[in-house]
């Protein structure tokens, strides 16, 4: 009895051959299902490709950054350093103490986000922050400039050209290059899948 139990335990770890060697009818059906699904996946990609043709035509699409999150109506003082916000003259009170004047001076240096023009009203005087004066350029600065230019030349563009660029294909053959490319590949997959299904069926008939 104990030996029988051990045998059964060992048998568990072997593959059930009846289950693992499915009959030909089952294989045929299984392969057909699997290949039809893979053709469906190809068709799905074709449809999704057709949906996004306009994006494919845009050469900058691939390098496009995700859209930035919208800034709140009250601009955050410390969030963005790229844009200078003009201080409106109407906002400056006429009689101010020394401390308050200093605060305004500080305020002029603070940088605000790009929605600044929304705050400007017609006819108002802008007090724009002055740019720091640059020192006269000498030979050293010219040399550094040429070095920088050389470096810039060496840096590869992020946008591909010619055959490397998908938008060139999308804009070729009267703007239908991408569609034709997708149709061609989907048809190739469908034909190959169809041939495979046909072979499996014929194999079964011959046996």
């Amino acid at each position: 009895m104990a030996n029988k139990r051990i045998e059964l335990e060992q048998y568990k770890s072997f593959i059930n051959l009846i289950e693992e060697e499915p009959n030909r009818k089952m294989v045929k059906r299984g392969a057909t299902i699997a290949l039809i699904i893979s053709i469906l996946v190809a068709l799905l990609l074709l449809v999704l490709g057709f949906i996004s043709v306009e994006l494919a035509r845009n050469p900058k699409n691939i390098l496009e950054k995700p859209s930035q999150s919208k800034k709140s109506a009250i601009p955050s003082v410390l969030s963005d350093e790229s844009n200078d916000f003009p201080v409106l003259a109407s906002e400056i009170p006429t009689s101010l103490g020394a401390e308050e004047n200093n605060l305004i001076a500080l305020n002029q240096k603070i940088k605000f986000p790009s929605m600044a023009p929304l705050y400007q009203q017609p006819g108002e005087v802008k007090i724009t922050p002055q740019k720091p004066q640059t020192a006269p350029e000498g030979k050293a600065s010219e040399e550094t400039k040429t070095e920088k230019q050389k470096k810039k030349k060496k840096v590869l563009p992020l946008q591909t050209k010619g055959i490397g660029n998908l938008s060139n294909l999308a804009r070729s053959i009267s703007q239908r290059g991408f569609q034709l490319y997708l149709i061609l590949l989907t048809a190739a997959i469908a034909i190959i899948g169809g041939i495979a299904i046909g072979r499996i069926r014929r194999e079964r008939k011959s046996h």
Partner: protein
Amino acid sequence: MKANTIVFDASMLILFPFFYYGLIRTLGRSRARAFAYGSFLFGLALETTFVICGLKNYYWYSINNYYKHYPLGGYIIWLGVVPLAALILWTITVASSYIIAESTAGKQNPYVRSSIAGCIALIFYLLAEPVGITNHWWVWNAKNFYFLDIPVFNLLYVFLAVFVFTLVYRATIMERKDTPALSTLEQRTLRKFFVKSKKATRNLTWPELRRVFLFRLALGCVTLGAVMTPIITVLWAVANRGHIKPGW
């Protein structure tokens, strides 16, 4: 108009159970399971390597404003740094390539069959890549030589990866062969520590065979990495596009 990641993700999750059902009927339950987790792990290892090395990323939708609409970067399920949908696409591609190669060139030698499977997978990816790239399902960052905005090394990688996987699966699970080239290495490592048996591969039990399969797949991964590294380096040297930083 944009086909967002959620469309790709949902369609993959819906189609995969039907595909897997077909695979079970074709290969048998245990073999289909081995195929599925083998290709998942193989793909996961290679894709993770790509993401970690900064060659590719799946995070376009998870940046800034999009994060509000697509909390998980647009994908429902992630396996580490790789979304499940990408691995499902990979598995469907590998399995259908394998079935087509087996049915059309079943009597050819294993290398020819694996090459055919690799070519079919390449056709699949030539279709999927432009759609994926256009809709930002994934972004290629690598400084490399590009064809239709697909890095050429990726096309080579798809062919070689499917070639290696098909070869390993066929030799280990379907034919249960001992490979003389690997026998010494297997005896010293796998057979010594993980499969404590000196039997021939055809006489191993199913759990032992699965371990041999995973070991050979790991070796396949390493070999693929060793082959791909110089190719990527050469294509890096003749690049026609610069490096895009993963997070911009």
